[in-house]
């Protein structure tokens, strides 16, 4: 009997241990990843926890964090949210006791959700390093965020194929030129063996290129006309131009417009890298992928997206940012200081700036290192030649919901199951209703 009792108690103990083991080991993990073991003992130095937005740069951030910790003894943790889940991850991370001290928002609309958590960066050493005040994100008078990367997008062109078709990039200086070249290539598609445009895929992995980035152009030109930088109701003055460029994309592509609904970002990238099409609308972040796929600098160029609006002779690439660093105002005094020190080091030290230049792109700070990214260099050439870059106004789009509505309508229009009027409705009426819904 006694033996049985001991046995029963032993089993109970084991069960209990097993139940709690899950929690226990998890706690251990997080402790070891945040490197608190060596640095946190010296609490006065504070610590940094960066919730990173860019999965492609995760490894580089981990390395640079380790290097910083070795140099200064300040523990730096970098956790990267899985692609497309940044908002969710941030919502759950920020309420933890060990909340991120550094996170990011994507512009004024993203800031609306997080402004209560943004430390005013005005007058900090990081703010002083900015080359221009226009790279700061303001919430009233407070500097809520600081842009850390400048990116460009446009139409990436395979110059070799373009030459095979009998043109050079210099032949394309307006929407009419682009249309002429694209339609000529389509007419001779069988003879040439390639199409003008890669598939304008409307799968979730690719639709942002059109519902967000391409839609920026009609918004930009309308803002320019009115001299504004955001609005509660878009008029849709340049939607005919939007239609023209969209028609050009879908009717001169590698596939039938009705198949676009299922085409992915990888499809377009592979088509471009394997020489099935001359033009590929994407941005400077795509450079590394194309080089990895075996393309070389001498066959690549990025040209502006002409839509037949504004002063086309002086139009540059679409250049701007949707990545702003924000420091968590709820963090302790030491941690805030540690975070600002870390960022300042990132944008002034050689190790930090060269990591940013190589992995992220151009950074708007005084000590920026030079980049090897061809598309960024293209953008610099355009600007040096007196062209005006098209700014990124899609950060003022009222919500994800608005983008999704435009995306659905574009897809249906391409497939012939919807009309262009639906796109106009989603664009104009959708803007007004989403803006109202976001600001009530």
């Amino acid at each position, binding site marked *: 009997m006694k033996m*049985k*009792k001991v046995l*029963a108690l032993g089993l*109970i103990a084991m*069960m*209990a241990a097993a*139940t*709690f083991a899950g929690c226990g080991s998890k706690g251990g993990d997080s402790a070891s990843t945040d490197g608190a073991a060596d640095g946190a003992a010296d609490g006065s130095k504070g610590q940094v926890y960066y919730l990173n937005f860019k999965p492609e740069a995760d490894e580089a951030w981990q390395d640079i964090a380790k290097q910083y910790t070795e140099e200064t003894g300040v523990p730096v943790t970098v956790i990267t949210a899985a692609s497309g889940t940044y*908002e*969710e991850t941030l*919502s759950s991370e*920020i*309420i933890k006791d060990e909340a991120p001290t550094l996170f990011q928002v994507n512009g004024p*609309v*993203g800031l*609306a*959700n*997080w402004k*209560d*958590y943004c430390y005013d960066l005005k007058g900090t050493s990081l703010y002083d390093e900015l080359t221009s005040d226009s790279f700061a994100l303001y919430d009233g008078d407070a500097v809520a965020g600081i842009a850390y990367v400048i990116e460009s997008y446009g139409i990436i062109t395979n110059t070799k194929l373009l030459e095979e078709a009998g043109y050079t990039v210099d032949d394309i200086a307006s929407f009419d030129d682009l249309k002429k070249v694209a339609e000529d290539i389509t007419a001779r598609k069988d003879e040439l063996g390639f199409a003008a445009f890669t598939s304008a895929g*409307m*799968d*979730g992995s690719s639709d942002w290129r059109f519902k967000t980035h391409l839609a920026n152009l009609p918004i930009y030109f309308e803002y320019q006309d009115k001299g504004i930088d955001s609005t509660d109701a878009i008029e849709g003055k340049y939607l005919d131009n939007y239609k023209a460029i969209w028609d050009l994309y879908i009717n001169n592509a590698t596939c039938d417009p*009705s*198949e676009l*609904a*299922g085409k992915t970002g990888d499809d377009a990238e592979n088509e471009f890298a394997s020489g099935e099409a001359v033009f590929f609308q994407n941005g400077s972040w795509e450079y590394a992928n194309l080089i990895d796929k075996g393309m070389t600098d001498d066959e690549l160029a990025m040209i502006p997206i002409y839509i037949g609006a504004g002063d086309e002779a002086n139009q540059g690439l679409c250049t701007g940012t949707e990545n702003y660093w924000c420091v968590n105002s709820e963090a302790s005094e030491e941690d805030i200081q540690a975070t600002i020190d870390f960022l300042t080091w990132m944008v002034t030290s050689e190790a930090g700036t060269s990591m940013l230049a190589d992995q992220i792109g151009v950074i708007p700070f005084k000590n920026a290192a030079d980049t090897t990214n061809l598309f960024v260099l293209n953008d610099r050439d355009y600007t040096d030649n007196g062209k005006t870059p098209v700014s990124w106004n899609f950060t003022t789009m*009222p*919500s*994800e*919901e608005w983008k*999704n*509505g435009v995306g*659905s*309508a574009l*897809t*249906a229009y391409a*497939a012939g*199951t*919807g009309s262009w009027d639906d796109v106009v409705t*989603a664009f104009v009426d959708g803007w007004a209703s989403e803006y109202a*819904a*976001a*600001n*009530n």
Partner: protein
Amino acid sequence: MEKAIRKYWPVFVLPTLAAFSVGFIYPFVQGLYLSFCRFTTIKKASFNGLDNYAYALADSEFWHSFWFTALFTVVSTVLINVIAFAIALALTNKIKGANIFRTVFFMPNLIGGIVLGYIWQILLNCVLSILEKPLLALNATYGFIGLTILMCWQQIGYMMIIYIAGLQSIPDDYIEAAKIDGATTGQILFRIKIPNVMPSITICTFLTITNGFKLFDQNLALTGGEPAHASEMLALNIYNTFYSRTGPQWKGYGQAKAVIFCIMVIIISMIQLRFTKSKEVQQ
């Protein structure tokens, strides 16, 4: 031994109860509270009464997704259970390779919903483009059919296993006696087999109804709610309310929808349990 259990029951109950409280009861109560609040993060919530519920109940997209989900649940519950039961009947007969078939039918259930959704999206889009029909993301009817096919493929195997277990537990003498009395196959099926597997039917319909209502992964991966929210089910609607809108009020709306959703699922499954339980017989 029974004495020991009576004495030490708290030790047995506590670990699970603690885990259940931490993992379910506490978040549920907090979620209930948050559904009356305006918030971005759960630490900074301000009470705003019934506004969230007023919005959620007035949202036409929410009701559209409710009816879409309800229709889907009815269709998938009927199809899955009828087919699973038929396969179970076939595989309890002594046919060659019955075990291999059971394994094969069960396998789809081992693949995650997101993966299944993408695989079926590629498959169905290929078929649709060969037939020159609009793709899944363009037509809610095809989206609905696609979801039904996907769910049937995934769940039939699982329900089949439960039905096989039910059918095997029917004592052979019942069927033997019926045969001696001259009952036809149909009579044996409807008068003996089905009444005797009622407990399995209860559990299977419960599982398929709740799975249908709670469906999220497959919906997200297969159609993503396209075109324009037409194939969006309740769970995805709540998710989109929460994450694809801007401003603090939306989190509260999403939370209110989630509470309404939870209550609906509980009520519907209670009614179903009561109904099928009343049909169960004692062996």
